[in-house]
């Protein structure tokens, strides 16, 4: 008893996956998916397109057996299934590759793959090596099997994940935002691999929010918005513009507007900075630049090029190996976080787990780092004043909440992000360091945050923006620095760069002139 097909194509290829009427309500009452139908044919590359929070990953985790739907049916290869765990999905040939890889960093490639394979079937190392050689031969690429995983570039680590899935017998491969950690060149290599896999008959589901990827590699696309399917197309029959509109739902403003401001003196100066990461590796290798008042300096770069370590050194969270950090011409290299904050420095970290005390309330989180402003007699906290500040933040940044005294824990990711960003911007800092400030936000909220940063700059503050989103950097910055492998490899005005040039620099392929 096969289910009725959703499309009425007569020369329809075999159906690999059918999800019918999937609804998922999380225990906290959030409806992640509403009555979603999703169909994938054998041997196609099917893009699942949507903004952050549209429900893409939830849908795929249901298919992969990690979570169970509240309602709805899942059919794989024409057979009704109810997976209780990923093990069941694996048995049907479904495998998922996450953004964060599930590899043991200090194991070799072979050890990692053998570890995974041997947990599901009886197999010798020799057989695994044989299968890997055959696969790499067919797919036309090579990875040294004896190399330690952490020594490999991210692009190759991802290929190890894919190889692992294939050796374990995956015939349906789910890739969750696979290019988010890759440079443009690595992305291109990944797409080539995906095409080769498709030629071998592997079915691929590509979770993404990048339109260009859909157009360049997918055969068909399903668009999700706020937990509903808003369209299913062959990629040839739909334009990028239409997809964008469907994805965001009408309100399309893609770029932040630039506002002219008065350029002032040097606010922040970084001199020949060298910084090590937690493992002791040198991640910032001699960086020098200035940020002036009334200016936004954008640092573009693939995640992991040393930006995190650079910013942490600037705000005082990480010791400096060599070099200096100056605020208003004063050497603050030896100062702590609090002292730098008191000098008017604000910092939006790239992780909400770092910037928000989740068990504490919205009000309490609003004054983290600004405590001095809210102290009364005997160092008591003036909660009335703090509440006033918090209510300003939630109003200006659309933080949806029940009570200002609820723990931040209960807010959705987007609301947490807006609270954290809003708190730092509302403090009117003279210098602000923002790391991926629009992370996890939908387009409307992203634009809100961008316009607030521009307003801050227009009022004379210095802004240092680090983002892996090229559009954001190009749209906001007065000056752009490109960082690769701990060094500044390119510098110029936004007009000096187009997306391709920026992409190549970020991938480390063009030396700065």
């Amino acid at each position, binding site marked *: 008893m096969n289910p009725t097909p959703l499309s009425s194509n007569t020369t329809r290829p075999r159906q690999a996956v059918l999800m019918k009427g999937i609804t998922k309500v999380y225990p906290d009452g959030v409806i992640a998916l509403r009555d979603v139908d999703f169909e994938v044919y054998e041997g196609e590359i099917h893009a699942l397109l949507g903004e952050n929070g549209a429900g893409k990953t939830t849908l795929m985790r249901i298919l992969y057996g990690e979570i169970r739907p509240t309602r709805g049916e899942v059919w794989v290869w024409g057979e009704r299934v109810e997976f209780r765990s990923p093990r069941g999905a694996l048995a049907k040939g479904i495998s998922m590759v996450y953004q964060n890889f599930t590899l043991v960093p200090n194991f070799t490639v072979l050890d990692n793959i053998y570890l995974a394979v041997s947990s599901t079937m009886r197999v010798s190392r020799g057989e695994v090596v044989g299968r890997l050689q055959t696969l790499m031969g067919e797919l036309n690429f090579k990875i040294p099997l004896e190399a330690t995983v952490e020594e490999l570039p991210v692009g190759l680590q991802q290929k190890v994940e894919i190889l692992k899935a294939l050796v374990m017998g995956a015939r349906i491969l789910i890739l969750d935002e696979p290019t988010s950690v890759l440079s443009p060149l690595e992305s291109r290599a990944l797409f080539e691999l995906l095409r080769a896999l498709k030629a071998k008959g592997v079915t691929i589901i590509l979770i993404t929010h990048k339109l260009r990827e859909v157009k360049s590699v997918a055969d068909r696309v399903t668009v999700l918005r706020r937990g509903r399917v808003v369209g299913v197309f062959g990629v040839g029959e739909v334009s990028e513009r239409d997809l964008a509109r469907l994805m965001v739902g009408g309100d399309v403003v893609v770029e932040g507007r630039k506002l002219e401001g008065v350029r002032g003196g040097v606010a922040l100066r970084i001199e020949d900075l060298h910084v090590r990461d937690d493992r002791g590796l040198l991640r910032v290798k001699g960086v020098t630049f200035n940020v002036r008042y009334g200016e936004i300096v954008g640092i573009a770069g693939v995640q992991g090029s040393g930006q995190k370590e650079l910013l942490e050194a600037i705000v*005082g*969270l990480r010791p400096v190996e060599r070099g200096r950090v100056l605020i208003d011409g004063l050497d603050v290299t030896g100062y*702590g*976080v*609090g*002292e730098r*904050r008191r000098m008017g420095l604000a*910092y939006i*970290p790239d992780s909400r*787990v*770092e*910037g*928000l*005390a*989740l*068990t*504490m*309330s919205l009000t*309490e989180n609003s004054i*983290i*780092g600004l*405590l001095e402003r809210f*102290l009364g007699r*005997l*160092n*008591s*906290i003036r*909660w009335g004043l703090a509440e006033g500040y918090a209510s300003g933040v939630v109003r200006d940044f659309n933080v949806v909440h029940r*009570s200002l*005294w*609820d*723990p931040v*824990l209960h807010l959705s990711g987007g609301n947490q992000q807006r609270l954290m960003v809003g708190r730092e911007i509302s403090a009117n800092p003279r210098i602000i360091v923002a790391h991926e400030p629009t992370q996890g936000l939908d387009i409307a909220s992203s634009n809100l945050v961008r316009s607030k940063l521009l307003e801050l700059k227009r009022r004379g503050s210095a802004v240092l923006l680090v983002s892996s989103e090229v559009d954001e950097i190009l749209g906001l910055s007065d000056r752009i620095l490109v960082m690769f492998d701990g060094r500044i490899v390119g510098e110029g005005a936004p007009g000096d760069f187009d997306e391709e040039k920026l992409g190549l620099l970020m991938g480390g392929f063009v030396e700065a002139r």
Partner: protein
Amino acid sequence: MRLGSLENLRSQLVEVTLALVVGFVGGALALTAFGYNALENIQVMISYGFRDLGYLLLKSAPIVLTALAFLVPLKAGLFNIGGEGQLYAGAITALFLSKIGFYLAIPAGALAGLLVGVAIGLLRVVRGVNEVVSSIMFNWTLYYLSMFAIQRYLLDPVYTHQSIRVDRVLSLPEVVTIMLLSPLVVYLLLYNTELGYRIRVAGSSSRVARYAGVNLNIVTIQSMAIGGFLAGLGGAIQVYGVTTVVDTTLSSLYGLGFLGIGVALIARGNPLAVIPAAVLVSGLLIGSHWMELRGRVAPELADVVIGVIILALSAPYAYRVLASRMGWGVGGG
């Protein structure tokens, strides 16, 4: 901070009621299993335990303080198991000072507890010694040191099984005042001052604390100092307000610090709730002695009955604290 929402309060009430039921049923089962009349004995425990209000409050006071001694460091993310030793330090120091002047004895006792707390904090900050490990070692060290001090310097020449007797400096109303005021002061400190805010941010996440410019080392020492101060004060009060004498086996002090841990957990980490929690536990303790007397229940079994009840009451919160600390994905703290 404001009080939690009504809904939150209701779920807590349900939890405590359920825990009480589970605890008493468990205790009754233990009694029945060993052939005692459960209903009769539990009735004795409850009716006698809460009969003499003055005595009940007197007994509760030191436990309120040791509970707060556990609670303040807990808010900073530290497990101060050392309330026991800090209490000994406070009691014995206060005893020593009775020779010089008793008005100094009580603050000196608190100060002694504070020093022990600071020592544990320093070990953690400077040498990276886990506070649980050093607390336990301090507990035993101070236990034997205190016994030695009583035998060697403080022994009563007539009654050689106990220390010299001090004057009852603190009257019942004074002890009760301290017992009621301390939680209030701790509450205001935690929720209405800069220091309390820093302590709570540090307890929420060390990463966030660093981000906020909170010096974790200083907060560790500060919160352990406050904890030690409170436990030391508890020891001094036990001597000058309750027993006026310490026997050579420390039986009048032993266990008060550990009891505080249970009480703080029963109070769900809320300083004000420590008062009713301590009264409840003291009442059960007093009642259990009557149960031994009237029902001829073996003392060990009486301890089991109380243990089951305290366990049932504190387990849900203890689990949440552990879970949030270990990152098991449950909210709490």
